[in-house]
């Protein structure tokens, strides 16, 4: 509305000025044309005067010519005047036309354009006249319309784009959130990986600390026996620095020897660590295996070793060995052995004289004894024998525990051994009027490569126990049965049995069940311990059944493949 009012206002003002301008021009033209008319009129008057003068002069001939000329001049003057007037009129009219049809619309157009510009193209031009400018108005209107359409389209498109943009922004926002989440996760992962790294470092430091402070020497080798790691203890024991050792062959850094005198050098391939590499098995040596390293200073260090393969996936990448300097243990072991030896000697010596003098008294070398004296001496003698056998048993156990007993397998005929044991126990068995029943489930029961003395000891202990705890006139049953790769033996009696509360301790060293002590006061509690040590030593099992404490059945097994020979300082027999 305002625009329209403004348009009208400005139109009026423009009209006024133009009107006055054209009015002025018209008046000016009128005056000019009047003046010109006057001039012509004057000329005509002159001509008339001339004509009159000519007429007056009588110049008829010429008068007719002149008169014709004057008539023509008059006509020309009038025509010229009319033409001039017309000319000026036309000019005025053309000016008016220019004003009305060109300048005025142009001005309006300018105003409209200004309005358009100032109204941000939100303006519709009202066509005033139907002329060329109207087309321009139409054109402008169309342009505006197009522009507005375009604008609307742009707006719509903007809205659409806005929506799309919103979507994109939403998506981006979501992605941003995702990204943020991912960043959080990443940060978390980074944190975790840092923690892991720290943990790993801590772990590594921890392992290094363990390796560094462990008393055992430790080194690793590659499959060729070249050292890949050596810990501080190993450096100390072998008198070699890590820098010197790593990369060098084991043979160069720590040659290994075997034997009591440590004089048999082991080739690289026979060393436990290399065997671990090759066979993927772990090996461990014992004090009695007598391994020693020759170290830099030329000394030999007694060691016990353990080796294991190092696997990465399925591939052997080397092996690790730990070892300990056992020089002290070796000395202690020697001292212990020497103690066993001395103790056995020192305790046996007085027992020997006691035994011999008792025997001499009994055999009346010092004259006849009365009945009571004879009984007393007999008691002394039996005591001495028990003490001697107890000492022997203690020494046997000490030797087994020390791993010093050698194993000498020979083909053992179990029937014969049982018979021999029976014979050795004859005084005891006959005294109680007991029977021994031996049942072999197979006629051709195989003989097995066993250490005869050990098998004898096991049967001897089980049969003597059975006899001691079985009733007078009772039967002791010995059975032998082949079960796959094991020979299973049992020794059964119908004696006092093993009370429930004693059953889990019956194989313990020095343990004797209460009922056994009551029944047979003398006994060391070492027999079953010895049996267990021997049977387990040869890879068998020993167990018992004592149903409702009525008698006992002891079982043990012997591997049919027999025993492996073993070097040792002593046999079981003392």
């Amino acid at each position: 509305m305002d625009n329209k009012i403004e348009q009208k206002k400005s139109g009026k003002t423009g009209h006024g000025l133009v009107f006055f301008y054209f009015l002025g021009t018209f008046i000016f033209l009128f005056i000019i044309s009047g003046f010109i008319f006057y001039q012509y009129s004057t000329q005509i008057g002159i001509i008339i005067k001339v004509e009159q003068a000519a007429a007056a002069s009588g110049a008829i001939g010429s008068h007719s010519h002149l008169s014709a000329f004057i008539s023509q001049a008059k006509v020309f003057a009038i025509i010229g005047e009319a033409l001039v007037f017309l000319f000026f009129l036309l000019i005025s009219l053309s000016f008016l036309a220019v004003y009305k049809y060109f300048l005025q619309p142009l001005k309006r157009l300018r105003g409209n354009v200004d309005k358009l510009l100032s109204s941000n193209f939100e303006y519709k031009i009202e066509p005033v006249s139907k002329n060329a400018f109207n087309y321009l108005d139409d054109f402008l209107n169309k342009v505006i319309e197009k522009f507005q359409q375009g604008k609307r389209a742009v707006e719509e498109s903007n809205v659409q784009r806005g929506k799309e943009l919103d979507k994109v922004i939403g998506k981006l926002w979501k992605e941003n959130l995702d990204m943020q989440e991912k960043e959080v996760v990443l940060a978390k992962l980074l944190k975790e990986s840092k923690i892991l790294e720290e943990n790993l470092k801590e772990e590594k430091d921890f392992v290094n600390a363990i390796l560094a402070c462990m008393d055992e020497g430790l080194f690793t080798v590659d499959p060729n026996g070249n050292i890949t790691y050596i810990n501080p203890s190993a450096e100390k024991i072998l008198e070699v620095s890590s820098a010197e050792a790593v990369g060098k062959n084991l043979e160069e850094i720590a040659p290994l020897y075997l034997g009591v005198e440590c004089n048999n050098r082991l080739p690289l391939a026979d060393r436990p660590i290399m065997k671990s590499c090759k066979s993927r098995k772990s090996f461990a040596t014992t004090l009695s295996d007598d391994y020693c390293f020759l170290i830099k200073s030329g000394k030999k260090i007694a060691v016990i070793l353990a080796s294991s393969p190092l696997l990465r996936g399925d591939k052997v990448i080397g092996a690790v060995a730990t070892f300990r300097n056992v020089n002290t243990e070796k000395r202690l072991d020697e001292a212990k052995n020497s103690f066993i030896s001395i103790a056995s000697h020192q305790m046996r010596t007085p027992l020997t004289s006691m035994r011999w003098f008792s025997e001499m008294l009994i055999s009346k070398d010092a004259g006849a004894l009365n009945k009571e004296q004879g009984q007393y001496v007999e008691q002394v003698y039996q005591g001495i024998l028990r003490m001697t056998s107890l000492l022997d048993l203690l020494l046997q156990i000490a030797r087994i525990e020390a791993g010093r007993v050698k194993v000498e397998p020979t083909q053992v005929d179990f029937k014969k051994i049982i018979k021999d044991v029976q014979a050795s126990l004859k005084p005891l068995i006959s005294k109680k009027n007991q029977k021994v029943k031996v049942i072999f489930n197979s006629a051709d029961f195989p003989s097995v490569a066993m250490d005869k003395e050990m098998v004898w000891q096991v049967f001897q202990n089980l049969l003597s126990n059975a006899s001691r705890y079985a009733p007078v006139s009772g039967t002791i049953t010995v059975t032998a049965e082949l079960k796959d790769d094991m020979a299973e033996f049992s020794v059964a009696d119908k004696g006092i049995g093993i009370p429930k509360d004693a059953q889990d301790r019956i194989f313990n060293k020095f343990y004797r069940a209460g009922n056994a002590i009551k029944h047979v006061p003398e006994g060391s509690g070492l027999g079953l311990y010895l049996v267990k040590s021997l049977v387990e030593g040869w890879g068998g099992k020993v167990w018992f059944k004592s149903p409702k404490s009525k008698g006992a059945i002891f079982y043990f097994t012997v591997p049919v493949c027999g025993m492996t020979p073993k070097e040792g300082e002593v046999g079981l027999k003392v």
Partner: protein
Amino acid sequence: MPKEIKSKKIDEVFIVEDDAAIDKAYSVKFAHEGINVKIAEDGEEALEILNKGYFPSLILLDLMLPKKSGFEVLEEIKQNPKLKDIPVLILTNLAQEVDASRGLTLGAKEYLVKADLRIEDLVKKVKKYLGKK
């Protein structure tokens, strides 16, 4: 005079034993069985006596002896051409197999553990070596 003794084999058992009680048992029992004995209480004394030309029919040798061990005594006896043929029975309470095998390797006839031996059985063995019934 020692020279004459040197060459003459005496029907006597030379006992090398440091334990007085056992020495007493030996001498009493062997005397009772009619076997003459001579006793040395340490290794050095034993070798001294032997080197002076004493030539017993049998030597009963303990191992744990003062001054010189039974092994050293045995070694010297077996290295001495004049003594090496005298049968030596080791009578000890050192029951370890290493000792037994060492003793037998050095040339002892038998390795006997005293505590496990009845004195009657010892007498029988001695009589066997002396060729007595």
